């Protein structure tokens, strides 16, 4: 197990390197005119005042006038030593602070959605498998595919529209912090979380069903039946435990889906989280927020994959000895 962990960690180093290079280039490849636009906007907003900003000065201020490898080195150094992801081009606020400020909102949304997704996916997926080819199975599978096919942003929009037309009810558009009003906060988060959770549950449900079907055909399940065990025991003690191991991996694949869902849900339901920060940054070309967010999400993704692989190796010893 130790060797496996060491090997996994070593393999992470080049991946991490590529991640940082890609984030770095993402910002540097931006056509130069963004900085010109910035200078022009600054100039026009400061009419009357003496404005000595020109393109070269801005480049110097942002450290873009030194060779590219020096820029990369400085950038990494800043992140490693000070956790410094740069400053917002427009507000001048620290990107690290902006992200930390919004992290809890996205985390809460993601966590609720994730829990809901598993609460839907596991029972339905298992039921679908143990009652294969019954009406219940068909209903569960159709629901899974529908949940994958229905765009979350459309459902979100529908939920904004119809309850308000029929019953005059509308979701809150102001963000309510959890500590101010826990119940109001949950009420606000629950609808986007349900939408995200259902969308996520489709994929898991299908893999749970497939894995269960595979396991249910194993010899030891027949043995369990032959021993005269109750169905409940066979399913929970023998089948589910073994079927769920691969499902762990699938869950890691939901992280990108989750962040994508967060962008859309935060936008529709006016939650000031990281996704919304990212969308606004992209629309305003706020380069350092874009790069900071992508880096944070990518490292988060990397760690999730690592955690999943390790838990997998822990659960299934065969993996370690490859």
């Amino acid at each position, binding site marked *: 197990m130790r060797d496996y962990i060491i090997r996994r960690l070593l393999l992470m180093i080049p991946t991490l390197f590529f991640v940082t290079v890609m984030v770095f280039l993402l910002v540097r490849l931006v056509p130069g005119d963004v900085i010109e636009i910035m200078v022009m906007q600054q100039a026009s907003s400061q009419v009357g005042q003496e404005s000595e900003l020109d393109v070269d000065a801005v480049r110097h201020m942002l450290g873009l006038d030194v060779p590219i490898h020096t820029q990369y080195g400085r950038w990494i150094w800043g992140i490693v030593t000070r956790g410094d992801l740069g400053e917002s081009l427009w507000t001048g606020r620290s990107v690290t602070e902006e992200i930390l400020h919004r992290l809890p909102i996205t985390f809460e949304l993601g966590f609720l959605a994730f829990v809901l997704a598993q609460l839907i996916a596991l029972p339905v997926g298992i039921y679908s498998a143990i009652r294969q080819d019954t009406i219940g199975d068909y209903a569960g599978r159709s629901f899974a595919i529908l949940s994958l096919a229905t765009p979350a942003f*459309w459902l979100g929009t529908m939920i904004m529209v119809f309850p308000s037309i029929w019953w005059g009810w509308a979701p809150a558009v102001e963000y309510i912090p959890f500590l101010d009003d826990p119940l109001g906060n949950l009420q606000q988060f629950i609808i986007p979380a349900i939408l995200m959770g259902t969308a996520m549950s489709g*994929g898991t449900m299908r893999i749970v069903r497939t894995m269960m079907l595979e396991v249910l055909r194993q010899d030891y399940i027949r043995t369990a039946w032959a021993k005269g065990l109750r169905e409940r025991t066979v399913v929970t003690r023998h089948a589910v435990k073994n079927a769920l191991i691969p499902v762990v991996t699938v869950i890691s694949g939901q992280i990108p889906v989750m962040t994508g869902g967060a*962008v*859309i849900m935060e936008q529709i339901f006016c939650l000031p989280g990281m996704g919304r920060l990212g969308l606004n940054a992209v629309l305003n070309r706020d380069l350092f927020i874009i790069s900071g967010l992508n880096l944070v*999400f990518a490292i988060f993704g990397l760690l999730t994959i690592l955690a999943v692989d390790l838990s997998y190796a822990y659960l299934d010893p065969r993996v370690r000895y490859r």
Partner: protein
Amino acid sequence: MSDTTDRLPEAEAEPKRHSWLADLVIRLVKEKPLGAFGGLIVLLLLFTGIFADFHYLTWVGVPDEWADTHGLAPYGYNEFNMADKLAAPSAKYWLGADNLGRDLLSRIIHGARISMYVGLGATAISVLVATIIGSISGYLGGKFDIIAQRFVDAWLCFPGLIFLLAIMALVGPGLVQVIIVLGVSSGIGSSRLVRSAVIAIKENVYVQAAKAIGASTGRIVFRHLLPNIMALVIVMFTLGMAGMILTEASLSFLGLGIPPPVPSWGGMLSQAGRTYMYEAPWLAIWPGVALTLVVYGISMWGDAVRDILDPRLRGGVGRYGGVKVKAAKVRGEPGTTKA
């Protein structure tokens, strides 16, 4: 399946065989009725997309002054009529009109064309990129493979939509840009599928034999490896399309996909749909219905094609395509296709 011509005629099991494509269609209809229904939706999408503005009346010789139509769509997708702004559904506008008095039905029909372009174009690019990276990385192996795979790992770490949004901000909005960005970015991710398939096939005796008699690398790749991953490639294509269409709609919904006045379903939802959703709810309903129907149809069809072509890929995870590879890899399975 493309190697049948090399075999001697006696070797054929049945004297009269359908082409593999006809075979596929027959099995689809017989074994997977729901998949065939999905296939019908796909055909409907293609038909609508291709003939959205085909002037069929003029084409059959009806004089222009009588042929008061724009093809399948009753109006042009950007045909203003401010007097009918936000008109409710009626005989004139079947699904109503938007804030500029444009017929919603016509815009949805033209939107089918956009979805068709994105679905086919982006998936084709994706499959191409995946095949190139995956087969090179898998076949060459060694240092190149290790480095290329770390790059793919890094690429997969990025959060789907936020990363795509950032890239879209770099290249600017537009149909061609969306197609290329979606295609390349998903192609890099799914190159893993191709890679593991190529690695499994590479070990086969016939590849060793070809090498032993001195076949060039190019010949091995094109004659022995690629024909054997065709099933996988087709499955990647059918399963990828739905995700592409959905992602394009999400990007356009967030304002970084295809800019107006081009009628992308996602864009229609966010522009007119969300602004006027209380006065004119039909603007928010129909583009979403079209989108759901198409994505549902393509998914059902893709699933069925996968089950028929490549049973080992069963239990795929819909639009979270890449995950299954990982599961297979971690379980220590050699590959995803059998030669």
